[in-house]
Protein backbone atom coordinates (compact mmCIF):
# COMPACT_ATOMS: atom_id res chain seq x y z
CA UNK A 1 0.00 0.00 0.00
CA UNK A 2 2.68 2.39 0.98
CA UNK A 3 4.58 1.70 -2.21
CA UNK A 4 1.51 2.57 -4.25
CA UNK A 5 1.05 5.87 -2.43
CA UNK A 6 4.60 6.93 -3.02
CA UNK A 7 4.27 6.29 -6.71
CA UNK A 8 1.24 8.55 -7.02
CA UNK A 9 3.03 11.43 -5.32
CA UNK A 10 5.88 11.25 -7.77
CA UNK A 11 3.61 11.60 -10.83
CA UNK A 12 2.11 14.90 -9.65
CA UNK A 13 4.78 17.59 -9.77
CA UNK A 14 3.41 20.98 -8.79
CA UNK A 15 3.47 23.54 -11.58
CA UNK A 16 4.56 26.87 -10.27
CA UNK A 17 2.09 29.60 -11.05
CA UNK A 18 4.16 32.29 -9.40
CA UNK A 19 4.94 34.00 -12.70
CA UNK A 20 1.33 34.04 -13.82
CA UNK A 21 0.59 37.39 -12.11
CA UNK A 22 3.61 38.87 -13.87
CA UNK A 23 2.31 37.85 -17.26
CA UNK A 24 -1.15 39.08 -16.51
CA UNK A 25 0.18 42.37 -15.18
CA UNK A 26 2.17 42.85 -18.35
CA UNK A 27 -0.98 42.46 -20.44
CA UNK A 28 -2.87 44.65 -18.02
CA UNK A 29 -0.39 47.49 -18.37
CA UNK A 30 -0.47 47.22 -22.14
CA UNK A 31 -4.23 47.60 -22.22
CA UNK A 32 -4.23 50.33 -19.61
CA UNK A 33 -1.85 52.38 -21.73
CA UNK A 34 -3.58 51.65 -25.03
CA UNK A 35 -7.07 52.32 -23.73
CA UNK A 36 -8.85 55.49 -24.62
CA UNK A 37 -12.12 55.67 -22.80
CA UNK A 38 -14.91 56.51 -25.19
CA UNK A 39 -16.41 59.77 -24.04
CA UNK A 40 -19.75 59.41 -25.71
CA UNK A 41 -21.93 56.39 -26.11
CA UNK A 42 -22.92 56.14 -29.71
CA UNK A 43 -26.62 56.24 -30.33
CA UNK A 44 -26.37 56.79 -34.06
CA UNK A 45 -24.99 54.48 -36.69
CA UNK A 46 -21.42 55.50 -37.26
CA UNK A 47 -19.75 53.73 -40.10
CA UNK A 48 -17.12 56.13 -41.33
CA UNK A 49 -16.17 56.49 -45.01
CA UNK A 50 -12.70 55.77 -46.35
CA UNK A 51 -10.08 58.35 -47.30
CA UNK A 52 -6.32 58.36 -47.63
CA UNK A 53 -5.38 62.04 -47.50
CA UNK A 54 -5.74 62.02 -43.76
CA UNK A 55 -4.12 63.66 -40.81
CA UNK A 56 -3.97 62.54 -37.24
CA UNK A 57 -5.98 64.45 -34.69
CA UNK A 58 -3.21 65.15 -32.23
CA UNK A 59 -4.57 66.70 -29.14
CA UNK A 60 -7.46 64.66 -27.83
CA UNK A 61 -8.64 67.29 -25.37
CA UNK A 62 -8.79 69.96 -28.05
CA UNK A 63 -11.37 68.15 -30.13
CA UNK A 64 -15.12 68.67 -30.11
CA UNK A 65 -17.02 65.68 -31.39
CA UNK A 66 -20.20 65.92 -33.40
CA UNK A 67 -21.78 62.68 -34.51
CA UNK A 68 -24.40 62.27 -37.19
CA UNK A 69 -26.14 59.35 -38.77
CA UNK A 70 -29.26 57.27 -38.69
CA UNK A 71 -30.38 56.28 -35.18
CA UNK A 72 -28.88 52.93 -34.25
CA UNK A 73 -31.07 49.85 -34.05
CA UNK A 74 -31.79 50.33 -30.36
CA UNK A 75 -33.31 53.74 -31.00
CA UNK A 76 -35.74 52.82 -33.77
CA UNK A 77 -38.48 54.80 -32.04
CA UNK A 78 -36.74 58.04 -33.02
CA UNK A 79 -37.25 57.30 -36.69
CA UNK A 80 -34.94 56.43 -39.52
CA UNK A 81 -33.97 59.90 -40.64
CA UNK A 82 -30.35 60.85 -39.97
CA UNK A 83 -29.85 62.80 -36.75
CA UNK A 84 -27.16 64.72 -34.96
CA UNK A 85 -25.74 63.43 -31.70
CA UNK A 86 -24.16 65.79 -29.19
CA UNK A 87 -22.74 64.31 -26.01
CA UNK A 88 -25.01 61.36 -25.30
CA UNK A 89 -28.25 62.72 -26.72
CA UNK A 90 -29.97 63.27 -30.02
CA UNK A 91 -29.88 66.94 -30.81
CA UNK A 92 -31.48 69.41 -33.10
CA UNK A 93 -29.40 71.30 -35.65
CA UNK A 94 -30.05 74.51 -33.69
CA UNK A 95 -28.47 73.03 -30.57
CA UNK A 96 -25.05 72.83 -32.22
CA UNK A 97 -24.30 76.53 -31.73
CA UNK A 98 -24.76 76.59 -27.95
CA UNK A 99 -23.00 73.24 -27.67
CA UNK A 100 -19.91 74.42 -29.52
CA UNK A 101 -19.85 77.74 -27.66
CA UNK A 102 -20.10 75.91 -24.36
CA UNK A 103 -17.21 73.63 -25.31
CA UNK A 104 -15.14 76.63 -26.37
CA UNK A 105 -15.84 78.37 -23.08
CA UNK A 106 -14.58 75.40 -21.10
CA UNK A 107 -11.11 75.77 -22.62
CA UNK A 108 -8.59 78.43 -21.65
CA UNK A 109 -8.76 81.48 -23.87
CA UNK A 110 -5.29 81.12 -25.36
CA UNK A 111 -6.00 77.59 -26.52
CA UNK A 112 -9.35 78.31 -28.19
CA UNK A 113 -7.96 78.96 -31.67
CA UNK A 114 -6.55 75.43 -31.70
CA UNK A 115 -9.87 73.74 -31.10
CA UNK A 116 -10.96 71.40 -33.85
CA UNK A 117 -14.36 69.96 -34.50
CA UNK A 118 -14.36 66.35 -35.55
CA UNK A 119 -17.35 65.46 -37.68
CA UNK A 120 -18.00 61.79 -37.27
CA UNK A 121 -20.64 61.27 -39.87
CA UNK A 122 -22.00 57.96 -41.01
CA UNK A 123 -21.23 57.25 -44.64
CA UNK A 124 -24.86 56.94 -45.66
CA UNK A 125 -25.85 60.38 -44.47
CA UNK A 126 -27.10 62.92 -46.98
CA UNK A 127 -24.97 66.00 -47.55
CA UNK A 128 -27.89 68.27 -46.64
CA UNK A 129 -27.46 67.49 -42.96
CA UNK A 130 -23.68 67.81 -43.14
CA UNK A 131 -24.06 71.15 -44.94
CA UNK A 132 -26.38 72.37 -42.21
CA UNK A 133 -23.88 71.37 -39.52
CA UNK A 134 -21.13 73.16 -41.40
CA UNK A 135 -23.23 76.32 -41.66
CA UNK A 136 -23.88 76.26 -37.92
CA UNK A 137 -20.17 75.90 -37.25
CA UNK A 138 -19.39 78.75 -39.60
CA UNK A 139 -21.77 81.06 -37.84
CA UNK A 140 -19.98 80.56 -34.51
CA UNK A 141 -16.60 80.84 -36.24
CA UNK A 142 -15.59 77.30 -35.40
CA UNK A 143 -13.75 76.95 -38.68
CA UNK A 144 -11.25 74.17 -38.08
CA UNK A 145 -12.95 70.92 -38.87
CA UNK A 146 -11.93 67.38 -39.49
CA UNK A 147 -14.00 64.85 -41.34
CA UNK A 148 -13.11 61.76 -39.39
CA UNK A 149 -12.61 58.83 -41.73
CA UNK A 150 -11.17 55.38 -41.82
CA UNK A 151 -7.91 54.99 -43.61
CA UNK A 152 -8.26 53.31 -46.97
CA UNK A 153 -8.65 53.96 -50.65
CA UNK A 154 -11.42 56.46 -51.38
CA UNK A 155 -12.55 54.40 -54.35
CA UNK A 156 -13.83 51.85 -51.84
CA UNK A 157 -16.55 54.35 -50.92
CA UNK A 158 -18.28 53.81 -54.20
CA UNK A 159 -18.51 50.06 -54.03
Amino acid at each position, binding site marked *: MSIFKNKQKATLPVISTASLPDIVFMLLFFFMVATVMRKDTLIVKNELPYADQIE*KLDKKNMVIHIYAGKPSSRYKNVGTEARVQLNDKFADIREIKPFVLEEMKSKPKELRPYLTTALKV*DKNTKMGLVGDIKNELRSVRMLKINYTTRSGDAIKNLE
Partner: protein
Amino acid sequence: MARRLAPEVNAGSMADIAFLLLIFFLVSTTIETDYGISKRLPPPPEDLQTNILIKEKNLFRVELNQLNQLFVEKKPLALKELKTAAIAFLDNGGGVEKEYCNYCKGARDPKSSDNPDKAVISLVNSRETNYETYIAVQNELISAYEELRDRDALRIYGMSFKLMKAYLKDGSYSGNKELLKDQIKQIRLMYPEKLSEAEPVTAAL
Protein backbone atom coordinates in the same frame (compact mmCIF):
# COMPACT_ATOMS: atom_id res chain seq x y z
CA MET B 1 18.16 35.25 19.89
CA ALA B 2 16.63 33.45 17.01
CA ARG B 3 15.84 35.63 14.07
CA ARG B 4 12.13 35.81 13.35
CA LEU B 5 11.21 35.16 9.80
CA ALA B 6 8.73 37.50 8.19
CA PRO B 7 5.49 35.68 7.58
CA GLU B 8 4.98 34.92 3.93
CA VAL B 9 2.11 36.77 2.26
CA ASN B 10 -0.03 34.55 0.14
CA ALA B 11 0.08 36.01 -3.35
CA GLY B 12 -2.16 33.42 -4.91
CA SER B 13 -5.08 35.79 -5.34
CA MET B 14 -2.99 38.48 -6.98
CA ALA B 15 -3.47 36.80 -10.34
CA ASP B 16 -7.24 36.91 -9.83
CA ILE B 17 -7.18 40.61 -9.11
CA ALA B 18 -4.95 41.29 -12.09
CA PHE B 19 -7.22 39.21 -14.32
CA LEU B 20 -10.22 41.16 -13.19
CA LEU B 21 -8.56 44.46 -14.07
CA LEU B 22 -7.27 43.03 -17.32
CA ILE B 23 -10.72 41.94 -18.39
CA PHE B 24 -12.14 45.34 -17.51
CA PHE B 25 -9.58 47.13 -19.68
CA LEU B 26 -9.94 44.59 -22.47
CA VAL B 27 -13.65 45.25 -22.65
CA SER B 28 -13.44 49.02 -22.40
CA THR B 29 -10.63 49.42 -24.91
CA THR B 30 -11.29 51.04 -28.22
CA ILE B 31 -8.01 51.46 -29.98
CA GLU B 32 -8.70 54.94 -31.23
CA THR B 33 -8.90 55.61 -34.95
CA ASP B 34 -9.08 59.36 -34.99
CA TYR B 35 -7.75 60.20 -38.39
CA GLY B 36 -9.47 62.39 -40.89
CA ILE B 37 -9.44 64.99 -43.60
CA SER B 38 -8.66 68.36 -42.04
CA LYS B 39 -10.36 71.33 -43.61
CA ARG B 40 -10.89 74.95 -42.90
CA LEU B 41 -14.38 76.31 -43.38
CA PRO B 42 -14.87 79.72 -44.94
CA PRO B 43 -15.87 82.48 -42.49
CA PRO B 44 -19.58 83.25 -42.06
CA PRO B 45 -21.28 84.77 -45.12
CA GLU B 46 -21.46 88.26 -43.62
CA ASP B 47 -17.64 88.38 -43.44
CA LEU B 48 -17.07 87.39 -47.01
CA GLN B 49 -16.17 89.85 -49.67
CA THR B 50 -18.74 89.37 -52.35
CA ASN B 51 -17.10 91.10 -55.25
CA ILE B 52 -14.28 88.68 -55.97
CA LEU B 53 -14.27 88.01 -59.67
CA ILE B 54 -12.88 84.79 -60.97
CA LYS B 55 -12.32 84.24 -64.64
CA GLU B 56 -14.21 81.32 -66.03
CA LYS B 57 -11.01 79.70 -67.25
CA ASN B 58 -9.55 79.76 -63.75
CA LEU B 59 -12.49 77.89 -62.36
CA PHE B 60 -12.73 74.11 -62.24
CA ARG B 61 -16.32 73.14 -61.61
CA VAL B 62 -16.92 69.88 -59.81
CA GLU B 63 -20.52 68.98 -59.21
CA LEU B 64 -22.16 66.12 -57.43
CA ASN B 65 -25.81 65.55 -58.14
CA GLN B 66 -28.48 63.84 -56.06
CA LEU B 67 -27.69 60.47 -57.66
CA ASN B 68 -24.05 60.71 -56.58
CA GLN B 69 -22.92 61.29 -60.14
CA LEU B 70 -19.85 63.36 -60.69
CA PHE B 71 -19.78 66.16 -63.23
CA VAL B 72 -16.64 68.09 -64.06
CA GLU B 73 -17.10 71.19 -66.18
CA LYS B 74 -20.65 70.00 -66.90
CA LYS B 75 -19.44 66.68 -68.29
CA PRO B 76 -19.78 63.35 -66.46
CA LEU B 77 -16.50 61.91 -65.23
CA ALA B 78 -15.48 58.79 -63.34
CA LEU B 79 -14.07 59.36 -59.88
CA LYS B 80 -10.85 57.61 -60.84
CA GLU B 81 -10.16 60.25 -63.47
CA LEU B 82 -10.89 63.21 -61.22
CA LYS B 83 -7.38 63.44 -59.80
CA THR B 84 -5.73 63.51 -63.23
CA ALA B 85 -8.22 66.10 -64.45
CA ALA B 86 -7.63 68.28 -61.39
CA ILE B 87 -3.86 68.03 -61.76
CA ALA B 88 -4.09 68.94 -65.43
CA PHE B 89 -6.14 71.99 -64.51
CA LEU B 90 -3.98 73.19 -61.59
CA ASP B 91 -0.70 72.55 -63.32
CA ASN B 92 -1.75 74.05 -66.63
CA GLY B 93 0.09 77.36 -66.32
CA GLY B 94 -1.54 79.09 -69.25
CA GLY B 95 -0.76 82.58 -67.97
CA VAL B 96 1.58 84.94 -69.75
CA GLU B 97 3.85 87.74 -68.54
CA LYS B 98 2.85 88.66 -64.97
CA GLU B 99 0.86 85.53 -64.52
CA TYR B 100 3.44 83.20 -66.02
CA CYS B 101 4.08 80.10 -63.92
CA ASN B 102 7.67 78.96 -64.22
CA TYR B 103 7.30 75.71 -62.27
CA CYS B 104 4.19 74.42 -64.03
CA LYS B 105 4.62 71.45 -66.27
CA GLY B 106 1.14 71.36 -67.76
CA ALA B 107 -0.16 71.83 -71.27
CA ARG B 108 -0.09 75.67 -71.05
CA ASP B 109 -3.51 75.81 -72.64
CA PRO B 110 -4.66 79.44 -72.74
CA LYS B 111 -8.23 78.25 -72.18
CA SER B 112 -7.41 76.65 -68.82
CA SER B 113 -6.00 78.07 -65.59
CA ASP B 114 -3.33 80.81 -65.56
CA ASN B 115 -1.31 79.52 -62.62
CA PRO B 116 -1.93 77.42 -59.47
CA ASP B 117 -2.37 80.54 -57.40
CA LYS B 118 -5.25 81.72 -59.59
CA ALA B 119 -6.83 78.31 -60.10
CA VAL B 120 -9.92 77.70 -58.01
CA ILE B 121 -11.73 74.42 -57.69
CA SER B 122 -15.39 74.82 -56.99
CA LEU B 123 -17.20 71.89 -55.44
CA VAL B 124 -20.97 71.99 -55.49
CA ASN B 125 -23.11 69.24 -54.11
CA SER B 126 -26.79 68.56 -53.85
CA ARG B 127 -28.50 68.10 -50.51
CA GLU B 128 -29.23 64.53 -51.50
CA THR B 129 -25.61 63.60 -52.23
CA ASN B 130 -24.21 60.87 -50.05
CA TYR B 131 -21.56 61.89 -47.54
CA GLU B 132 -19.48 58.92 -48.63
CA THR B 133 -19.26 60.17 -52.22
CA TYR B 134 -18.54 63.69 -51.07
CA ILE B 135 -15.60 62.49 -48.95
CA ALA B 136 -14.28 60.46 -51.87
CA VAL B 137 -14.34 63.56 -54.10
CA GLN B 138 -12.73 65.73 -51.42
CA ASN B 139 -10.08 63.10 -50.98
CA GLU B 140 -9.29 62.97 -54.70
CA LEU B 141 -9.05 66.75 -54.97
CA ILE B 142 -6.75 67.00 -51.97
CA SER B 143 -4.59 64.24 -53.33
CA ALA B 144 -4.23 66.23 -56.57
CA TYR B 145 -2.81 69.15 -54.60
CA GLU B 146 -0.62 66.85 -52.56
CA GLU B 147 0.82 65.20 -55.65
CA LEU B 148 1.80 68.53 -57.17
CA ARG B 149 3.32 69.65 -53.88
CA ASP B 150 5.21 66.39 -53.62
CA ARG B 151 6.60 66.86 -57.10
CA ASP B 152 7.96 70.34 -56.45
CA ALA B 153 9.17 69.58 -52.93
CA LEU B 154 11.15 66.72 -54.38
CA ARG B 155 12.55 68.96 -57.10
CA ILE B 156 13.52 71.88 -54.85
CA TYR B 157 14.31 70.35 -51.46
CA GLY B 158 15.00 66.77 -52.41
CA MET B 159 12.31 65.22 -50.23
CA SER B 160 8.62 64.70 -50.64
CA PHE B 161 6.09 67.05 -49.07
CA LYS B 162 4.67 64.19 -47.06
CA LEU B 163 8.07 63.49 -45.57
CA MET B 164 8.58 67.16 -44.77
CA LYS B 165 5.31 67.26 -42.88
CA ALA B 166 6.19 64.07 -41.05
CA TYR B 167 9.57 65.51 -40.03
CA LEU B 168 7.92 68.67 -38.76
CA LYS B 169 5.78 66.63 -36.39
CA ASP B 170 8.60 64.29 -35.43
CA GLY B 171 10.15 65.33 -32.14
CA SER B 172 13.40 63.51 -32.82
CA TYR B 173 14.07 65.26 -36.13
CA SER B 174 17.64 66.49 -36.07
CA GLY B 175 17.51 69.13 -38.82
CA ASN B 176 16.50 72.75 -38.62
CA LYS B 177 12.79 72.89 -37.90
CA GLU B 178 12.38 76.60 -38.57
CA LEU B 179 13.86 76.16 -42.01
CA LEU B 180 11.62 73.17 -42.64
CA LYS B 181 8.58 75.18 -41.61
CA ASP B 182 9.54 77.90 -44.07
CA GLN B 183 10.02 75.38 -46.82
CA ILE B 184 6.62 73.83 -46.19
CA LYS B 185 5.09 77.28 -46.29
CA GLN B 186 6.87 77.95 -49.55
CA ILE B 187 5.49 74.80 -51.16
CA ARG B 188 2.01 75.61 -49.85
CA LEU B 189 2.31 79.05 -51.44
CA MET B 190 3.19 77.51 -54.78
CA TYR B 191 0.08 75.36 -54.72
CA PRO B 192 -2.42 77.01 -52.38
CA GLU B 193 -5.45 74.88 -51.67
CA LYS B 194 -8.21 76.96 -53.21
CA LEU B 195 -11.18 74.72 -52.87
CA SER B 196 -14.39 76.64 -52.75
CA GLU B 197 -17.59 75.05 -51.62
CA ALA B 198 -19.81 78.06 -51.64
CA GLU B 199 -21.67 79.09 -54.76
CA PRO B 200 -18.95 80.86 -56.69
CA VAL B 201 -19.51 84.29 -58.13
CA THR B 202 -18.12 84.33 -61.61
CA ALA B 203 -17.44 87.19 -63.91
CA ALA B 204 -19.44 87.25 -67.09
CA LEU B 205 -16.50 86.90 -69.39
